[in-house]
């Protein structure tokens, strides 16, 4: 896996050179878009990370963790992951804030940390996508979309838990 990013960069840059495109100009244009995408997230991240920080500092997360620990430990599921499972379909930036909290408290290379990363990277926010993509259309009813997307999200969680055990 350590070769993949250098290899992709090499491939893309050499392709750009062979096809004689203005590689650096295109790069800077794209990089600007990428930077703006993240910077646009700042306001919601400030709100959400602070809210989670308050919950952690107040001891509320510990209490929740203690309640959930027993049932979840039977299944071998780290209790830190439950907030992420609940938040992922609702808001992308909230999920990002929860993943950050998990990585900071359990460590990025711990089992819980790795599962959180896989969950984050393998599913998308259902409600946001539905609201944004149906803009400007008469579509109001979306039969079957929410249940199907939630089932897919749930399976993504289960797959993430299993695969991080094996790999």
């Amino acid at each position, binding site marked *: 896996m*350590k070769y993949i*990013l250098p290899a992709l960069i090499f491939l*893309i*840059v050499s*392709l*750009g050179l*062979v096809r004689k*495109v203005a*590689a650096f100009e*295109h*790069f800077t244009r*794209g*990089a600007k*878009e*990428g*930077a703006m*995408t*993240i*910077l*646009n*997230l700042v306001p919601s*991240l*400030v709100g959400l*990370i*602070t*809210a*989670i*920080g*308050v*919950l952690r*500092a*107040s001891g509320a997360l510990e209490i929740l963790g203690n309640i959930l620990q027993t049932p979840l430990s039977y299944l071998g599921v780290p209790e830190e992951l439950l907030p992420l499972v609940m938040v992922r379909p609702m*808001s992308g930036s909230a999920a*990002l*804030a929860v993943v950050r909290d998990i*990585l900071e408290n359990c460590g*990025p*290379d711990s089992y819980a*940390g790795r599962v959180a990363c896989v969950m984050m*990277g*393998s*599913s998308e926010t259902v*409600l946001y*996508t539905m609201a*944004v993509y*149906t*803009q400007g*259309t008469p*579509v*109001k009813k*979306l*039969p079957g*979309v929410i*249940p*199907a997307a939630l*089932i*897919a*999200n749930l399976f993504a969680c289960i*797959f993430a838990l299993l*695969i991080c055990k094996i790999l």
Partner: protein
Amino acid sequence: MLNIIWCVLLMVGILCGIATGRTEAVTEAVVNCSREAVTFAIGMVGICAFWCGLIRILEAAGGLAALQKWVRPVIVRLFPSAKKDPETQQNIITNLTADFLGLGNGATPSGIAAVQGLSRLGGDGERASRDICLFLVLNTAALQLMPTTVIAMRAGLGSQAAMDILLPTWITSLGAVLMALLAYRICRGRR
């Protein structure tokens, strides 16, 4: 929805802090976490900007067109109502490939255009056609080549092997995409 959840989270936190006698810790958390949130976002800007820049080179060099050519047969089969509308077909393909390459907001305009096109073709009015629903379901189980935000976050928080989650993430999202298709078939089939 998030409006309510966010307020409740803060209120629960503050009340719980008072009950457990940790009001000072709560105050400290507000000051520190809001600052950390900005540093966290700034820390992700670099790698995400780099990746988006790279993908733009790939696009300019015709790599994106090649990728779209490969997925076209699958998309055509999945969305039969767009068969006679190449523009909508192209929008669906653009959106799904942009998602795959992690262009984030770059996928949104083509996604909206694709739903508009499908809604025109489907002609069901308020009730979304089968193809619109399928398109949205596929979008929520997006397969991603390089989850840049997750990798940036791992690297920023001191991971020894930030890239190690790639293979599990690919397997998981592929599984989730298949489950999304299957679950949609079942959920829609009942009606």
